[in-house]
């Protein structure tokens, strides 16, 4: 269905990308795991996944000379999706083991879950598990979340979360142990989520289908 369109899954040595590839396969997206800058820039869609430490991730992207490629690709206006660490990297900076600069696509920062909640009860970190995603704004239906119900569960694995300067770009919120955070962001051609849609069962695959659909639309615009 999306046979002619090519998606690049950026491989920068941070975590397991095969589940992302399998989700693409499941929605008939022609995706390749790659760190080739030319392939990335020339793709019709780009996925930036990743798990692990923020500082290592930026360092790896720098070594592979991919920071410019990612920024150029995003500037081209073609669909881009950041997942988990791939979402956090879009921010200005992270406080993980010292301050690290991010890709600065979105002003804001990445912060760690506190060790205790507001009542002093210990919080287990990382958060591993399913949480609802919700929003009190009405831009949901035209976004990558189209077709997903409010409060639907998605699968999360993270110790850090993003705090964007602009609340306008927050697409959905989620809550862990009473702490509310931005679980997805959306602006122009960029969609980014803290959860793993590729591990969030059939509901998560809806996001991959929406992404595939956005490629088609983007492709038509170019012609």
């Amino acid at each position: 269905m999306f046979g002619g369109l090519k998606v690049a899954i950026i491989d920068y040595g941070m975590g397991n990308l095969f589940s992302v590839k399998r989700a693409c396969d499941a929605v008939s997206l022609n995706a390749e795991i790659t760190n080739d800058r030319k392939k990335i820039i020339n793709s019709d869609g780009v996925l930036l996944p990743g798990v692990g430490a923020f500082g290592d991730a930026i360092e790896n992207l720098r070594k592979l000379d991919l920071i410019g490629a990612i920024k150029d690709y995003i500037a081209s206006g073609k669909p881009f999706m950041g997942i988990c660490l791939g979402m956090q990297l879009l921010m200005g900076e992270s406080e993980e083991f010292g301050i690290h600069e991010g890709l600065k696509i979105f002003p804001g920062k990445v912060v760690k879950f506190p060790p205790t909640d507001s009542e002093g009860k210990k919080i287990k970190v990382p958060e591993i598990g399913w949480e609802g995603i919700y929003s009190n704004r009405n831009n949901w239906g035209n976004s990558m979340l189209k077709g997903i119900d409010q409060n639907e569960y998605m699968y999360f694995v993270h110790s850090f979360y993003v705090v964007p300067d602009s609340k306008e770009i927050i697409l959905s919120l989620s809550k862990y142990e009473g702490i509310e955070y931005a679980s997805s962001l959306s602006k122009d051609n960029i969609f980014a989520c803290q959860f793993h849609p590729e591990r969030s069962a059939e509901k998560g695959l809806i996001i991959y289908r929406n992404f595939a659909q956005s490629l088609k639309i983007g492709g038509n615009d170019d012609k």
Partner: protein
Amino acid sequence: MKNIRIIPRLDIKGPNLVKGIHLEGLRVLGKPEKFAKFYYENGADELIYMDVVASLYNRNSLHSIVERTSKEIFIPLTVGGGLRTIADIRDVLRAGADKVSLNTAAINDPDIIKKASKIFGSSTILVSIEAIKQPDGRYLAYTDNGREFTGFDVFDWAVRVAELGAGEIMITSVDREGTGEGYDLELTRRVSEIVPIPVIACGGAGSIEDVKNVIVQGKADAVSLASVLHYGVVGKYGINDDFAEEGNIEYLKRGRQSSRVTPGKLDELKTFLITNKINCRGKGGKI
């Protein structure tokens, strides 16, 4: 309160799903991929594949099961059993696992936890601790399905595992495993309270009531169960001839239920938990 994860655990021997008691005396129950798909469609939050005789069998069998499974299910899959090196971990992730479970390798060389979590991310590395309660009340860690004594104190080891960078711990009571007598609540609670990372309770579920107890009293962040769910599937769908003719299949041929467990289904279990004010992903459990 966070959502508790319910994780069916599938023990694998060669091509088959098996279940034992105290991790011994394995019965063949069917094809793991079929059970995995069934659990996925019925609301499992994650799945665990444990190759219970890994060192004796060819790994290709496990890899092909993992590969077939990962194309059909889109929830996290943890694979363990016999993973000794970074290369072993890489291979099983490449086959389609999302996380790996380490026990023997971690005991033999605790640094592998640090190395592996650095390379693959903490959240990819689960450390499994098999505990046996000693006559003096101490809990000691074992390997090889509870056969090999390590001399490690379970709680000291759990703290160290977390410090070395593991993303979560699965604590198995070998004493309770497969017995249906319920989880070891004291063991689970003490491990869960002592480490800052999530703890998965494993071993002993005989009914859905036991699952509730290990969450409320045992402070488990996630619960793994096998017999209750497997016998629920076998009971509902009868004897399935579609299993490889290998291993102990007498149980399946006789068509008898296990007397030790009350079979249950995932959706019933989740409804029961939600009714008891335990949050989990399931119908009616939305925030």
